[in-house]
């Protein structure tokens, strides 16, 4: 029993040594496997605007009320696509107040971080009006060929006519910004 046990122990050590060291002359087998990684990246656009903005003026000379809205956006367009950011007044000021329908609200865009900003425009309740036009192969962030900043921004400055016929009080309107990219 003792001898059997000794032989068995030597065999076990030999097997263990086989696992721990690669015997000289034993050919290693290497398996090369290929796998295709297919990333399908679509055109994309997203934006963010502040919940509210106040239009104010100083003095008593019926100067227009002014205020700004900073639009932050992320965009990626295809080589054959493009995109745009538009805005539409979804709720006009209350009765007795200023009137978007009457053309009281105009706006002008500052320099766009990506794309071409609008010029001077009149806001509308019935149609979406341009804020930024995105070119083909546009992308946000990371530097050339994309923009240097992330997110991109464009400042929209609103001007609201201060007509004497408007009653005193506080008035609000809702403006929806929409981005699209292809």
């Amino acid at each position: 029993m003792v001898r059997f046990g000794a032989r068995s122990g030597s065999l076990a050590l030999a097997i263990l040594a086989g696992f721990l060291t690669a015997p000289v002359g034993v050919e290693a087998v290497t398996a090369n496997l290929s796998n295709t990684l297919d990333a399908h990246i679509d055109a994309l656009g997203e934006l963010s605007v502040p919940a509210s903005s106040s239009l104010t003026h100083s003095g008593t000379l019926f100067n227009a009320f002014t205020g700004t809205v900073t639009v932050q956006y992320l965009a990626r367009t295809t080589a054959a696509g493009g995109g745009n950011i538009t805005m539409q007044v979804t709720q006009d000021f209350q009765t007795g107040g200023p009137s978007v329908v009457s053309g009281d609200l105009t706006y002008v865009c500052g320099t766009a971080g990506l794309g071409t900003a609008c010029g001077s425009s009149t806001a509308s309740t019935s149609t979406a009006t341009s804020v930024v036009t995105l070119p083909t192969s546009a992308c946000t962030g990371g530097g050339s060929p994309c923009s240097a900043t992330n997110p991109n921004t464009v400042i929209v400055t609103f001007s609201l006519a201060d007509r004497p016929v408007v009653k005193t009080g506080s008035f609000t309107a809702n403006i929806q910004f929409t981005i699209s990219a292809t």
Partner: protein
Amino acid sequence: MKTQLIKHSLLSAAVLIGGASMAFGQFAATGTTQVSVAVAAESAISITTSTTSLTEASGAGIFGAPFTGTTNFSYKVRTTKVGGAGTITVKITSDFAAGGPSVATPPTGDAMTYACTTAASATPCVGPVTASTGGATSVATFATDAHSAAGTGSSDAGTVVWTLPNDPIYKTGTYTATATFTISAT
């Protein structure tokens, strides 16, 4: 213990990333902002006749008619919807020179007076009103919730028709006075 530390680190990183994302607000295909404006009572006036010449009516005869002239003005006004009011006043801030007519100390019966017209947004003064160097006198008053004409750039118009007696006591010459108009609204 080590596992707990790793979990804690991952949680901290997630919180930091979440915080950074929130700083940019919620990004989506659309976003809505609410623009608000507080419209207060306002008023403004423009004197469209910068120099008003007071002249004697032709053919009135010797000392037969006073010197008269009309000052035109335009104004914009908005008074408070409830409890608002407003005024247009005038004050002679520079009197005629010595030897001529006088607003401050006119010869008896020679006081310079005026009458007013305005648009419907105001109630004009009822002439004749005696002009004064000592205090502002009324040209028009505005009621609560008064509004001048609609339309951007539009305004209402009014006039002040001056009357200055033609007294032989005045020396010949050209005399000028300055009338300052003030509009206010609450």
